[in-house]
């Protein structure tokens, strides 16, 4: 017989499901499952790989770009709390803000493990200009209190691409980087799901907003796609494997009604 606490989630009414998964308690119980035993985002006993100077150089550049993306996500998620239209969204974004802060911390920690003495300076020096421009535009949308556009930029465009890139990179990465990225991917699943579902509900009720999002997408797609293409070059992803990168994002926007 099932433990009394093992509830069948599929029997929940939709309102109760939304209440449950957007709660701080749900987030806390979920992340404990995979972050509990980690130190700096990886297990303490995971060995440091021996990297060639060129491999290290590429990895440092890639991690610096991830830090630019995570900084944008951290500031974006924190700002979105103010303009979120309901309590569920505000509480969820509070948990996402904590996630993004953790991501930035573990990625910066990984840079230190790789011998980077001043990660902030290195991120500023190596960070992709297109990602920095994306960061600037995202914060403009947040400051402009443009909820659907800012949420689309952050939780669909950025999170979907990060989810795909980090998952792909984790398959080829050294053991420590792999563990750091795998932990982040688990968080990204919630972030992109939240974005798609929240926007899906908004577009269902206000289909005219789709045109606004189409324009935002046209502007921001190139910035994010270009920077992640550079990342794929740096980590040596074969061309054939890169279709996976875009397909995830394209499937999400297709479900939202952007052909």
């Amino acid at each position, binding site marked *: 017989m099932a433990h009394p606490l093992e509830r069948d989630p599929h029997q929940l009414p939709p309102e109760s499901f*939304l209440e449950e998964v957007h709660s701080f308690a749900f987030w806390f119980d979920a992340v404990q499952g995979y972050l509990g035993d980690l130190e700096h985002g990886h297990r303490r006993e995971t060995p440091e790989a021996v990297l060639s100077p060129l491999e290290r150089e590429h990895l440092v550049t890639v991690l610096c770009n991830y830090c630019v993306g995570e900084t944008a996500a951290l500031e974006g998620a924190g700002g979105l709390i103010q303009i979120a239209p309901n309590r569920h969204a505000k509480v969820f974004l509070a948990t996402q803000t904590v996630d993004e802060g953790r991501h930035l911390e573990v990625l910066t920690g990984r840079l230190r493990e790789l011998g980077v003495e001043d990660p902030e300076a290195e991120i500023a020096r190596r960070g992709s200009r297109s990602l920095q421009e994306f960061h600037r535009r995202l914060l403009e949308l947040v400051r402009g209190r443009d909820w659907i556009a800012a949420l689309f930029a952050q939780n669909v465009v950025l999170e979907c691409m990060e989810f795909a890139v980090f998952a792909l990179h984790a398959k080829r990465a050294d053991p420590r980087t792999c563990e750091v990225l795998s932990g982040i991917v688990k968080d990204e699943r919630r972030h992109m799901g939240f974005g798609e579902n929240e926007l899906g509900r908004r577009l269902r009720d206000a289909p005219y907003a789709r045109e606004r999002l189409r324009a935002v997408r046209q502007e921001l797609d190139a910035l994010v796609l270009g920077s992640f293409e550079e990342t794929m070059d740096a980590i040596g992803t074969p061309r054939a494997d890169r279709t996976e990168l875009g397909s995830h994002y394209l499937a999400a926007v297709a479900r939202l009604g952007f052909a």
Partner: protein
Amino acid sequence: MTPADPLLEAEEPSAPRQRFVLDDRGFDEVPKKYRRFYRKWGGPGDALGANEALCPVCKIVVRSTRELRVGDRLYCMACMTRLVVVAGEGGRLEAQVVY
């Protein structure tokens, strides 16, 4: 169940549904009390059971204690998505997102 919910459970046809006892497959992205309802997907070669559907948003396998039928409601707690079971190409059951 909520009376106004359009995704009420599909009407029970004459054949009884197969029931399943779910085991914990180590999916650690949801609270412990929900873990047995989800598992990682092994890719295109991973055959889904009669009680399983793939979440199209995050590619996690969503599991039920009973055989799935068209119209059933499922939830993916890993990405917070509400799903409905539909007949896909060739009549194969699959999950579709409901916003």
